[in-house]
């Protein structure tokens, strides 16, 4: 029986090895052919793509393979350009039916196909895809939701900001991706982001504050001030940073008060914010904090001191009780001057 088993296994494995060798050879040959074709067609098709994007010149009749290659070149282009060139790309893809085909695939049963279609629609530049992409922010598959989010960013879909904010708050899409996309969409998404400031989940409030600090204007500062006393430390910390970015009026005193917050995260953020504002009135407090506080706030306070008054920091570093953070910050100042 043992021998029979081994004979069977040997034959099965030999067949598998032959099949794998065949697969390897076929893949290798196909890859070689594709690479050669790509190299041959790339220059020509790049020229065709450039003519379309810059002059609106429609491509000549192309073989199916060349049309596919041109689509890839245009997707690459669309990631690098803004303005009328994207409209030309959108018109071309509408004309050749790519947008309709991809929209149809969005209804596919296979999640990877839906994800791929959602991704391609972002590069196809057609605003007609926006409603379908927004709908797929609720797709059961994470990859599809992420691809739809990314494409809505590529399409600068201001009208999708609400959907993205909701999906982010419900943790349906990755936070970092959502934030990157909302930044890509820009100030048009600020009203929806503002809604996050009163969200029950501290993480959502914190993200909302952070985004408002990046995309808002000085006029939004009044919305942020109350969050300096939010029950959650990460929200208070982000509020300090956001207010310093918006450079809103006389915020220095309010931020200085946060240097004595119970949460080290908030103290560190307040120190960083005061450094950003170059608030000279905070210098003594910051130098003191750099010498006596726990690691992260002390390090932030020392860095902020260096930004506000490097000479004062260098002088403080000569003191016996300066501590390791002031010494490090002084080193950084000194090294930058070499």
């Amino acid at each position: 029986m043992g021998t029979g088993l081994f004979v069977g296994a040997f034959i099965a494995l030999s067949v598998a090895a032959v099949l794998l060798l065949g697969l390897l050879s076929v893949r290798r040959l196909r890859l070689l052919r594709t690479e050669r074709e790509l190299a041959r067609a790339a220059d020509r098709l790049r020229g065709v793509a450039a003519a379309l994007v810059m002059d609106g010149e429609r491509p000549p009749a192309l073989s199916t393979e060349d049309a596919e290659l041109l689509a890839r070149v245009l997707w690459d282009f669309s990631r690098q350009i803004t303005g009328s060139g994207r409209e030309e790309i959108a018109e071309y893809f509408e004309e050749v039916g790519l947008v309709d085909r991809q929209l149809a695939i969005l209804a596919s049963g296979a999640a990877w196909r839906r994800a791929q279609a959602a991704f391609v629609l972002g590069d196809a530049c057609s605003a007609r895809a926006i409603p379908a992409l927004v709908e797929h922010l609720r797709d059961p598959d994470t990859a599809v939701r992420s691809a739809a989010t990314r494409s809505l960013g590529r399409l600068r879909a201001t009208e999708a900001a609400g959907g993205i904010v909701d999906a982010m708050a419900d943790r349906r899409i990755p936070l970092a991706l959502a934030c990157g996309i909302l930044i890509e969409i820009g100030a048009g998404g600020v009203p929806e982001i503002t809604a996050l400031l009163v969200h029950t989940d501290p993480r959502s409030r914190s993200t909302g504050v952070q985004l408002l600090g990046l995309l808002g204007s000085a006029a939004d500062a009044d919305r942020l001030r109350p969050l300096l006393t939010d029950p959650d430390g990460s929200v208070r910390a982000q509020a300090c940073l956001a207010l310093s970015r918006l450079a809103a009026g006389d915020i220095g005193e309010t931020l200085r008060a946060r240097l004595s917050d119970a949460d080290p995260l908030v103290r560190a953020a307040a120190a960083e914010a005061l450094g950003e504002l170059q608030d000279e009135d905070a210098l003594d407090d910051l130098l003191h904090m750099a010498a006596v506080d726990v690691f992260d706030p002390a390090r932030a306070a020392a860095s902020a001191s260096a930004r506000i008054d490097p000479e004062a920091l260098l002088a403080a570093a000569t003191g016996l009780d300066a501590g390791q953070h002031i010494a490090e910050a002084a080193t950084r100042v000194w090294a930058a001057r070499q």
Partner: protein
Amino acid sequence: MILALSILIPIVIIMYLVINAVYLAGALLASRELRDVGRALKRSVEREAFVSPLTPGVSILVPCRNEEVAIRDTVHSLLALRYPRFEILVLDGGSTDRTRERLIEEFALVPAWRAMRDTVPTGPVGPFYVSTRYPNLWLVCKPDAGKAEGLNVGINTALYPYVATVDGDALLEEGALLGIVQPLLADPDEVIGSGGMVRAVNGSVVEHGRVVEVRFPKQIVAAIQIEEYLRTLLLMRTSLSGLNALMIISGAFGLFRRDLIEEAGGYFTKTAADDVEIVMHLQRLAREQGRRTRIVFMPEPVCWTEVPDSLKTLLVQRRRWHRGIAEAIWRHRRVLFRPRYGRLGFIALPYLLLELLGPPIELLAWAVVILSVLAGVLSPTSLFFLGVSFMLNLVLALAALSMAEVDYRRHAAGGETVRMLGYVVLGIVGYRQLLSGACMVGLVDFLRGKRPYTQPTRRARD
């Protein structure tokens, strides 16, 4: 003796075949996983991650000792990384060559002060240097420190919430850090670490830390490892990652949450496999605290590293690695087959145990077959065993090559694949058995409590 052999032959052969069957099953799982990863890579959101303010900063820890040949290229490759916020901490564990001088000259380093936490005990540290040209590049010296101690110094010094570990002779591709951070960005609550693909740089053309042309090394020993790395990393780590049972993130290129390493008490300094031990420790802690976690292997961000180019250094390296795996398993032995630890106790650690016991069993199988020939009791079964054993290894190697060929290829088109096939055969006959011997010695070292220190030797790059 003949009676003993007749009993031993089927037992050893069956054990050997079971081990290889597990590898085969791993290959099948990996093929599905790699297909999915390949599709996901085509929908990369790295560009969006690059501009997102929520992409976390990363402190890159580069433990090194006597790396004067490679360290400048390593640091150049790190400085060229495309990533929004990072710092590089080169952690010199008491080099006796010109590693420190090379760094000081090349990157204009000057003496500096650097604040450190005392979260992980490390003893005295210093001196520190900072680059006047690249403010995010630091050299931290800790005399007579092993790799794990160096990493602990890095943990205490790190500025950012994530730490990446990179070997002192490794080269990262420009987008490697942004690539390896993707699983953590996609699921920051669950994913606590990730590791990238490691490939042999020997023979390739390197300019200022960039691999500009991928070539095969002249030394056969190094060339065989190219296929070996593909097989072990691309097949086995991918499949284990898919099963959420990954226990090894290569020290050459891994990324972890700093706070969790601090919670684990830092890297364990009394093992030759600190990279294996830390993954086990993090996974174990998570299960004990009732947290769902994942540690992910990514086949695409590539880290290029110098592999041993002589048989002697290779065997010494494998002996050390195997001892390290034994030490790590022993330290976390209570996890084995305990329901509380779920997959960790029933898949991940048993698999590692299989890896540990595989080489001795393989050697034993070969020894039994040879003894049978000498004793004149070699049955057709044993002969077919030899055939099956060869074919199993061939199938695994071919599977790895086939999978690598499509989405994860780095070698140039042309005769490279044919050449690789030649190395596959060489790897199966002779090479693999030699490595098993070295692993066996490593296991004996562990059992005898021996911990010989070995310094990898480096050859200047072509």
